[in-house]
């Protein structure tokens, strides 16, 4: 057996392992692209939050805390929110998922979606509190509320996309 034969499968599996983080990073960019849809700029669904949640539930080994923190920072820098706001929110959501692992393990989709809805509410409240404290004024709650509703409603769509990726690219768990 030559060395090459040992190395390539490892490189391949390492690359596959990067898929969740890469995908989430791409969703951050998608979030801030000027899509030209009226009103969407301010209530863009939080796609990265869905991604962080999905991978923290289904493949926590491929989504470390540091990754959700860095993804949050990346989003803050791109969208112009106070640096650290999204990072704080994503890491918090991630930590709740990991520490309540038993609740999520092997549950049906509806339960997972419900869990996401609850955490999304928490994330919206936390984000709103941080923004209000940072700017020392009460941020308008309406945009955050619409963003929350859109985020909750779109979770099944994104979740099935991630499911496809997980089945096709990450089969050997």
């Amino acid at each position, binding site marked *: 057996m030559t060395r090459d034969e040992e190395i390539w499968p490892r490189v391949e599996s390492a690359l596959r392992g990067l898929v969740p983080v890469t995908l989430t990073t791409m969703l951050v960019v998608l979030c*801030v*692209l000027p899509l030209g849809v009226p009103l969407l*700029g*301010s209530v*863009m669904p939080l796609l990265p939050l869905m991604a962080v949640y999905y991978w923290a539930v289904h493949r926590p080994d491929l989504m470390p805390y540091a990754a959700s*923190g860095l993804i949050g920072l*990346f989003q803050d820098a791109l*969208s*112009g929110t106070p640096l650290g706001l999204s990072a704080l929110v994503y890491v918090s959501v991630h930590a709740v998922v990991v520490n309540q692992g038993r609740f999520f393990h092997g549950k049906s989709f509806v339960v997972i979606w419900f869990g996401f809805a609850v955490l999304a509410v928490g994330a919206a409240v936390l984000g709103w509190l941080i923004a209000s404290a940072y700017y020392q004024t009460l941020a308008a709650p309406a*945009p955050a509320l619409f963003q929350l509703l859109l985020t909750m409603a779109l979770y099944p769509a994104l979740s099935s996309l991630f499911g496809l990726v997980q089945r096709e690219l990450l089969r050997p768990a």
Partner: protein
Amino acid sequence: MRRWDGRYVTRVAAPAKALLQRFGFVVLLAGAFTLLMVGRTQTVMVERLSTAVTDLMAPVMGALARPIESAQDMAEAVGRVFTVYEQNEALRQSNERLLRWETVARRLEQENAALRALLNYRPETLSAFVSARVIGDSGSAYVRTKLLDAGARDGVAKGQAAITNDGLVGRVVEVGERSSRLLLVTDLNSRIPVVVEATRQRAILAGDNTETAYLALLAQNARIEIGARIVTSGHGGLLPPGLPIGKVSAVGDGENRVQPLVDFSLLEYVLLADGTMPPLKPMAPDPRPPEPAQ
């Protein structure tokens, strides 16, 4: 002699790794919190961090924004084909009206020139236009900003006004090497000195992250009518005076809302213009001791 094989490393590293995985989030949360605190006080340092990221991403986002723009333009063009007749009629009518206005404008222009010559008046001119493409939205519920593909190397500076054919869009708040960030007039942190165009009443146009802005610090007895045009006053010298911003859309007790003239969701290009005053220089400290109050 003990061998430094993989098993030994695993034996030591595994518990450490597990501990980090279990409580790593505490470190990260503390880090993010600290960053937020630092960001409030050491604004410049944290800003540099975020402009470094936007500078890095500007070419990528610029490339990604192109096909979206083309698709929008195409959809618009297709939509126009179906309304050619109506549009033609509307244009014919507005052409007639504009021709009448032209006569008026020519007469006023001559009158103006003659009066200015009499007064020896020096007109204010907008200086240093830089055009920039919008390559990013905020995508957030807490800020109203746009990312531009021009930065310091293109002549963009903090405080410049961003305008389109329709009116004022906002101000430049962060400048990187090849990207910059625009604060829309509807952002929570936007405060712009304005006047009501017809009545010259002064106010501050303030944003609150909704789709419209409101008039703050308006005189108590001021009477505002729906549809009144709001323009920049130029007070403070940060923005050129007379730039149209919006129209009053709602009048109420203590809250007069202003609908911006620019549709921020369809923004593709903006012009950046300097204010009328040179940037402030820090004042030299006064060497004399302060006089005691009477």
